[in-house]
Structures are given as structure tokens and as C-alpha cells.
């Protein structure tokens, strides 16, 4: 049996998921120049939100997605106003440690509220699939891919064509010049942080019926997101999409074709980071970033 079509289909579906996962971090970094170490915890909260929506209220994760995304936006806004805004001009290390402290706190609030038990949303479509020719297509991953595509396209369209989106890009390029355009930079900051959190919450909702939900699920996803964002170039959404595809395709290919490849696949992300930073420090599509 020829595996290649299956390899491509798996890689493509994974790439969609990775894109959505990393795009929040990418936006947050592009605009605020902050790597939010609590980004993974937003994914975790989104996953728990979807899980509890299904378990307690019987609401399908896809239905609760809009509500959770709005809630994620609000939470991001609050976290920005309450904490992050105060370290915007502080050294990177303070920002890293602040968001790391938040991550630690959110993880353990989740443990206190919901215990450390692993969970997963058991929707009907979570385990359904179909063969298209020789290729197995798992519905849950297809749905995740579709949602991810919609969200990412919506984000790109918003940034490209809406008044606020354009302002957001302007702030990312030049904060002082943006203020001279009459753009309220603080508000754009809060909003981008909110949108970035909302995207991560959406990721959480999407993975709630695919992956295992635990209070600690966020951190590995954060690391992978950082790898993707670095790969594509800090601050470039298009770069992030490319980064996600590169990572997903290389992971899947290694898993299929290298002995014990599924184990080594995780190392690819780090190899890629180091490689790309040495060869092209700005990433594939990165813009100039003063660090």
C-alpha cells in the first residue's frame, strides 16, 4: 500500500491545528513584542471550557466555540490590563517571568477547580472517520482543520482590511508613528492580547475532542508554538502559517519513514529552531525586530 497520500493528508490536517495553535502567540509577539508564557494555559482553559460545556450543559464544543472565544478575549483583556501592561517596557526577562508566574498560577487554579484528572470531550464525531480511496480521514481532525482555517483566514482578513486590524499592524511596525495616526496604542495592545488569547482558547476548544485535556497540557503546546513562530519569523502571521506547515510535514514524515521516528519527531522542532536561528535569524518571513 502506498502510504504517501495518507502521509500528506495527516500532515495537512496537523498543520491546520498547528497554525491555529501558534497564530495567537505570533500575534501577541508581533504587536506587543512579548512572548506570553501563559499562552498555553489559554489553550488549556479553552479545552476545559469546551469540555465542561459538553459535560455539564450538553453543548457541543463547536457550538460553544463563539462564546468561549469571546470569553477568552475578555480574559486576555483583563490579564493585559491587570498584569502585562505593567511590564511592557520592562526587560524581556521580567516579562517572561511574569507570564510564567501567571501560567503556573493558572495551571494550579485549574487543579484546584477541576483536579488533575485527564479528560477529553466525547462528542459523537470525535471517533468517526471515512476512507477516501486509500486515505483515512478522521472527521474530528477534519473539523479541527476547518475551524482552524476559518479562524486563521478571519484573522488575516481582519488584520488586512479592517480599520482596527490595520491599526494593529501599524502598532506592530511602529508604536510611536501609530500613535501619531490617532491610534490608541494601549487599546490596540489590550485588544491584540485579547485576540491572541481568544485564538488560543479557540485552539483549546478544537483540541478538546482530539487531545487529552489536563491542567498541564499547555506548556508543551507553548514550546511547539514558539518553535513555529520562530521558524516563520517573529511577528509575521504568514510566516507562522508556513512555520506550522513545515513543522507538521517534517514531524509526520519523520514519524512515517524513520525508525522510532515518532519519538524523534519532537526533536525536529528544536533542531529547526536552532538551524533557522543560525542560518536566518529572522525566520522564514520575519521582519526586523529590535530585541
Amino acid at each position, binding site marked *: 500500500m502506498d502510504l504517501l497520500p495518507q502521509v500528506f493528508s495527516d500532515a495537512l490536517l496537523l498543520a491546520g491545528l498547528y497554525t491555529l495553535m501558534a497564530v495567537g502567540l505570533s500575534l501577541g509577539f508581533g504587536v506587543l513584542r512579548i512572548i506570553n508564557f501563559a499562552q498555553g494555559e489559554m489553550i488549556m482553559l479553552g479545552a476545559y471550557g469546551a469540555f465542561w460545556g459538553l459535560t455539564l450543559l450538553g453543548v457541543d464544543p463547536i457550538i460553544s466555540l463563539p462564546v468561549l472565544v469571546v470569553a477568552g478575549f475578555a480574559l486576555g483583556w483583563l490579564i493585559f490590563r491587570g498584569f502585562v501592561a505593567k511590564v511592557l517596557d520592562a526587560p524581556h526577562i521580567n516579562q517572561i517571568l511574569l507570564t510564567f508566574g501567571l501560567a503556573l498560577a493558572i495551571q494550579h487554579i485549574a487543579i484546584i477547580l477541576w483536579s488533575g484528572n485527564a479528560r477529553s470531550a466525547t462528542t459523537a464525531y470525535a471517533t468517526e472517520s471515512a476512507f477516501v480511496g486509500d486515505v483515512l480521514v478522521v472527521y474530528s481532525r477534519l473539523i479541527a482543520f476547518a475551524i482552524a482555517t476559518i479562524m486563521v483566514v478571519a484573522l488575516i482578513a481582519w488584520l488586512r482590511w479592517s*480599520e482596527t486590524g490595520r491599526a494593529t499592524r501599524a502598532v506592530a511596525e511602529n508604536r*510611536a508613528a501609530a*500613535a*501619531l495616526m*490617532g491610534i490608541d496604542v494601549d487599546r490596540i495592545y489590550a485588544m491584540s492580547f485579547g485576540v491572541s488569547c481568544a485564538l488560543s482558547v479557540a485552539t483549546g476548544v478544537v483540541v478538546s475532542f482530539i487531545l487529552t485535556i489536563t491542567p498541564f497540557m499547555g506548556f508543551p503546546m507553548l514550546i511547539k508554538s514558539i518553535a513555529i513562530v520562530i521558524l516563520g519569523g517573529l511577528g509575521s502571521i504568514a510566516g507562522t502559517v508556513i512555520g506550522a506547515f513545515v513543522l507538521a510535514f517534517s514531524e509526520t514524515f519523520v514519524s512515517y519513514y524513520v525508525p522510532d521516528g515518532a519519538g524523534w519527531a519532537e526533536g525536529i522542532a528544536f533542531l529547526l529552531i536552532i538551524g533557522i536561528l543560525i542560518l536566518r535569524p529572522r525566520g522564514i518571513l520575519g521582519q526586523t525586530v529590535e530585541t
Partner: protein
Amino acid sequence: MTPILELINIRVGYGQSVVLQDVSLNLREGEIVCLLGANGAGKTTTTRVVSGLLAPWAGEIRYAGENIATVPAHKRVELGICLSPEGRQVFPNFSVYENLLLGSFSKKARLRRTEMFDEVYGLFPRLAERRKQKAGLMSGGEQQMLAIGRALMGCPKLLMLDEPSLGLGPKIIIDVYEAVASIAKRGLSILFVEQNVQAALMIAHRGYVLANGHIAAEGTSAELRSSPLVQEAFLGKKPSRQDLSEVHRA
């Protein structure tokens, strides 16, 4: 009549060092005023204070009679204060068109967007030709036009231009100053910063000379041109090669 802009005893600086000390100046409606001075005299700092990028440590900024010292930068744009900043600061990854769109971000300006586009493209036909070009890929002169055009898109009542002639060829300088002059005829007040003294005094009604953070001299263009103080202030200046050549060409 109340002046459109009035700075009263402004004191400001960065960190520990003071850049402006007790600077007072004013600008009446429809007036073109230039700020002259050597490098580091505090000209750019003055525009930053007026635009709200820098909060004054002491003193008042009166705009149409109201103290706006605590109004944030983006709200001053809404009030009609627009700055074409030093070093142009166009958004390099945005097209010319998008840069201009951003210029009219404020709510008031958004309503008059089409009108302003016509006006700016009329003033700078070059920008219309290059509307789809990425700003970062344009020449310095084109970027300068874009920066001025972008500031105009905000429908300013008070337009500030920080060194509009810097890095421009002699032909373009004339274009730019013609543009500035024609803008001013529409009743706009203009405050601009120049090192190119001769060019500046050609179009300005009045001027201030800044030296070491103080107002060293003020007067009409004619007065300043003949003032020994101005001569002295600029003789003491050590101009860069570029500045020098521009002064000569102009």
C-alpha cells in the same frame, strides 16, 4: 484672538537630562511658524511634546485655549494636531495607499477620507502613481511626501512637519515647500522644524530659534534673517556634510 497653539514654560527631558527649559511659543491660526536651531537644540522634542509622544515635566500646552498637556497622543490627532515626524516614520511594510488610510484613522478624518485622498494625490501626484508600492521600498523623497501626505490625511488644524527637507534633492525640496505653502493657504496652521534656515525662512511667517533648550530668538522671517543672533547660532553649528550641501543647493 486666542492663538491655536501656545506653549507656556515647557520643561521636559529624557531620564535625568533636561532638553527643554522654560520654552514658550505661540502660533496663530493660519500662520506658518518655523523652529530653527542646531542639532540637539530641542526642536524635535518640541514637536514630540506638542504631539503628545512626550509628556512635559512642567508647563502648559494650550491648544485653542485649552490645556492639553494630559491629553494622550491619539486624542490630540482627533483634536486636529498632526505631525509628520522626524525620520519620516512611514510604515515600511504597508503600501502607500495603506499608509494614507492609516493617516485618516481618526473618526473625524475617516468621514472625509475620499476628499482628503483627492487632495493629497493632487498635492503629490507621485504618491498616486505609487499607491500600491510598499512604502519601505520608496526613495527618501517619496517617503517624505508620504509622511506629509499621511499627516494631511488626518485633517489637521495644526500641522507639524519635522525636517521635511531632510535627505531630499533640491527639486523635491521646492516641491515640498510649494506643497506646504499651498496647504497653508487653506487656513491651516503649520509649525515646522528646519535646519535648512534659508528655505525655512522663505515660507515661514515667523520663527523661533532654539539653542540649548531655550528660546534664543524669535521674530518674523525678515527679522530673523537679519538677526545677528541667528547668524551666530548657525555659524556655531557644525553641519553634517549632507545638510551643508543642501543649504548650498537651496
